[in-house]
């Protein structure tokens, strides 16, 4: 079973957020990456895009299936990680590190899960 880092927040859509001031770095969890299998294609929103919570803002595709990336908060896209676009398998190899997807400047955060609650969710 994959470890769930304590310092991150999580959504029920298997995304993680690293909150730093009003900027959230967003990625998908190890659990989500493992469920997809080898990721071969990542599409991300453009820098400057304004996003609405729950909207589909990108996708992560494996040989087996397609996963959508949902905006976890409202805000503006500050950065999109070109590393995962060029080398999608980075998401499998390092989902909480180099495999991050986007950085968002947000105004307010929705309710998020902590590591314990997310761990409980994926063990269901």
């Amino acid at each position, binding site marked *: 079973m994959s470890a769930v880092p304590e310092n991150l927040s999580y959504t029920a859509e298997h995304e993680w957020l690293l909150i730093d001031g009003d900027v959230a770095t967003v990625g998908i969890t190890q659990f989500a990456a493992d469920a997809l299998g080898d990721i071969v*294609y990542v599409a991300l929103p453009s820098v400057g895009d304004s996003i609405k919570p729950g909207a589909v803002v990108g996708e992560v595709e494996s*040989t087996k299936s397609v996963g959508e990336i949902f905006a976890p908060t409202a805000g503006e896209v500050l950065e999109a990680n070109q590393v995962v676009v060029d080398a999608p398998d980075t998401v499998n190899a390092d989902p909480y590190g180099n495999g991050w997807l986007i950085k968002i400047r947000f105004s307010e955060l929705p309710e998020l899960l902590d590591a314990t609650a997310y761990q409980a969710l994926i063990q269901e």
Partner: protein
Amino acid sequence: MSGTHTPLHAVHVAAGATFTDFAGYDMPVRYSSDLEEHHSVRTAAGIFDLSHMAEIDVSGPQAAQFLDYALSNRLSAMEMLQAKYSLLLSPSGGVVDDLIVYRFGAEHFLIVANASNREVAFSELLARSADFDVEVRDDSDAWALIAVQGPISREVMMASSITPDSPLEDLRYYRFITGEFQGQPIAIARTGYTGEDGYEVFVPAAHASEVWADLEAVGMPLGLVRCGLACRDTLRLEAGMPLYGHELGLDHSPAQAGLARAVDHTKDDFVGAGMTPVGPTSSRVLVGLVGEGKRAPRAGYAVLSSEGEPIGEVTSGALSPTLGYPVAMAYIDSDHATPRHSLLVDVRGSHLSVSVQELPFYSRKKVA
């Protein structure tokens, strides 16, 4: 999630497999990486647990005549120890299941059916056997089925403790031989679903884990890799092989699916003879589609003409691990089904350019 377990379940758990539900069975979807497993089958060999598949035993004085009536082709013409791809047709000419029939004797056949169709295939066969002197028995739980597929599969088999009754070197494609493993009766078929050379080994369920362990022990040093269902799907897709529920079903005829060769219209009488399913998709035919880039058409996506008019639907698709570009199979209107014809696929709202290509997308160099 806890489904039915194959006799090899504990082996997969110990190997660290990720599981998925497939037709009610808890099956390994992968052990490590789908792509690595896929490439291993193309370049070395992979070992697969196919014990979820159904085995239906048919025996009796009229077994051959019964199968000629119940199935699509002329099974009575099969030689002993031959395997044959066949279809179980509905009375209206659709496909209830696709099968491989193995002839063990003049009056004895074993049919391998899809796991998802175990009940329907068995009950259809049983119902169709009423007027024949034949016994039809669901033997699925008695057999484990282990596949070894890939260019070095023969080397792996020959290094194992499996003892065939005749030399494995002489076993031809779509033939099988009986044999034994530590005193247990087994059968080794040169069949598969990956587009590679390979074998499928029928083992009594109680001895499956010993055979698997032996194949791993001798095979892994040679390059054998444990393989899950995820790579099995991309392998068969590249090889242009249909999957029931995707390319095959009650609403398409064998001819539409490109399987006319599996139907023998010279037979006197058989279920589904001369019938074609009638419906909105009856003018469509199965084709291959290839695209560029990395996004793949997926099952259920609409296929459009270059003018944007809906003309069909994707049945299976993936970024081909071997070829590096997206490949898909789709049913499309026959007037668009010419090779190199340009079409579009609606990939979640954006249009992906594809062109029609003859199947298969990938074929190995033929061996003897």
